[in-house]
């Protein structure tokens, strides 16, 4: 990013100096900096609205419910990992939070999933199949509701800010499909050879027998709070 930004600035400024457009460039740069501030303030309302909604969803346990629904996919996404492996639980939570647009909750879960996957990795400097699939899912970034883009469109005076929801869903869906298909093809044609099957099996059964509970991490950031509100709500 350093190089890109410097290139944009320096090449532009040099050209401006050489072609004698310095004043025009200076003027529009200063205006642009100001426009950035206006845009940011136009953006605040939508972000507040969206984060308020997400908080309700989080408190109501939407993430955990959706995670249970998509859990059967894990067997198919990560065939080399037993479905009750703790890494799989974190990975599924990460995918659900990402799709819902809860970026700040998704990243710690993703890192947790990677650490769990790493525990059963026989060659800790080489990515396992499950890690590859999981990271690829994250880079493709399937998105249901692109709240920040909608907010930006509102800030810039769009009359149909949500018109881009379907194109975003379609494009991120295609990107997700493409990475999964290529990943699957590569794994089929070039099996990883990283872990001898027998060892891997032993290692994993060992681990799952040692940790009978705690296998499935769930997202419970406000457990105490949540029960309290539930009790009050029932009154």
């Amino acid at each position, binding site marked *: 990013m350093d190089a890109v930004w410097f290139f*944009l600035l320096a090449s532009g400024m040099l050209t*401006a100096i050489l072609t004698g457009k310095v004043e025009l460039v200076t003027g529009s740069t200063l205006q642009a900096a100001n426009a950035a501030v206006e845009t940011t303030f136009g953006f605040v309302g939508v972000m507040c609205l969206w984060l308020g909604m997400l908080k*309700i969803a989080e408190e109501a346990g939407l993430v955990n419910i959706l995670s249970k629904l998509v859990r059967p996919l894990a067997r198919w996404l990560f065939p080399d990992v037993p479905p009750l492996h703790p890494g799989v639980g974190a990975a599924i939570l990460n995918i659900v939070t990402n799709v819902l647009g809860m970026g700040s909750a998704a990243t710690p879960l993703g890192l947790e999933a990677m650490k769990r996957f790493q525990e059963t990795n026989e060659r800790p400097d080489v990515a396992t199949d499950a890690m590859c699939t999981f990271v690829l899912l994250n880079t493709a970034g399937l998105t249901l509701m692109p709240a920040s883009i909608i907010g930006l469109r509102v800030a810039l005076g769009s009359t149909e800010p949500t018109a881009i929801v379907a194109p975003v869903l379609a494009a991120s869906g295609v990107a997700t499909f493409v990475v999964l298909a290529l990943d699957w093809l590569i794994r089929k044609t070039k099996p990883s050879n990283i872990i001898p099957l027998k060892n891997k099996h032993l290692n994993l059964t060992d681990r799952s027998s040692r940790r009978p509970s705690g296998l499935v991490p769930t997202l419970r950031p406000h457990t105490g709070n949540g029960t309290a509100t539930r009790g009050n709500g029932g009154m």
Partner: protein
Amino acid sequence: MFAYLLNAISRWAFPLILLGIPLFGIIRGVKVYDCFIEGAKEGFGLALRILPYLVAIFSALAVFKASGMLTFITSTIGPMLAQVGIPPEMIPLFMIRPLSGSGALAVTGDIMRTAGPDSLIGKMAAAVQGSTDTTFYVVTLYFGCIKIRNTRHVLPVALVGDMAGFFTAVVVSKALFG
């Protein structure tokens, strides 16, 4: 038919979420109003966090565009991209999207600001922005945290996925808004 379905998704997704989430919250016994306020408090901070990115990108792009550099670049590689139907305005966005999420959001903002958020180019930029996540950032962060050096096929496959996402965003935007 397909376009009709996609437009229906765009039109209904947001209102249905605004209805569905509070309804789900009420059913699950959540104090929805208090909870909303609690979450909405964080909105201001989050929005302010993109301000430096917007200033950095808006002003750098202003220099780049007002000096004529962008026209120069797009007139050299633009015709090649035009062959496959990609408008040259998307070039800076394609370059920055895999590198920096907030940076790319700012580039998208700049394109929408100059071309108009409801123009074809403006909508296309928004679709490209949402079409993938920040590949280099994700790969570096996720593999870096567990010190994996050999990432096998991940980076090339992820970049092919990015390109597929970009291309779909361009094609679908043209079909829906062109």
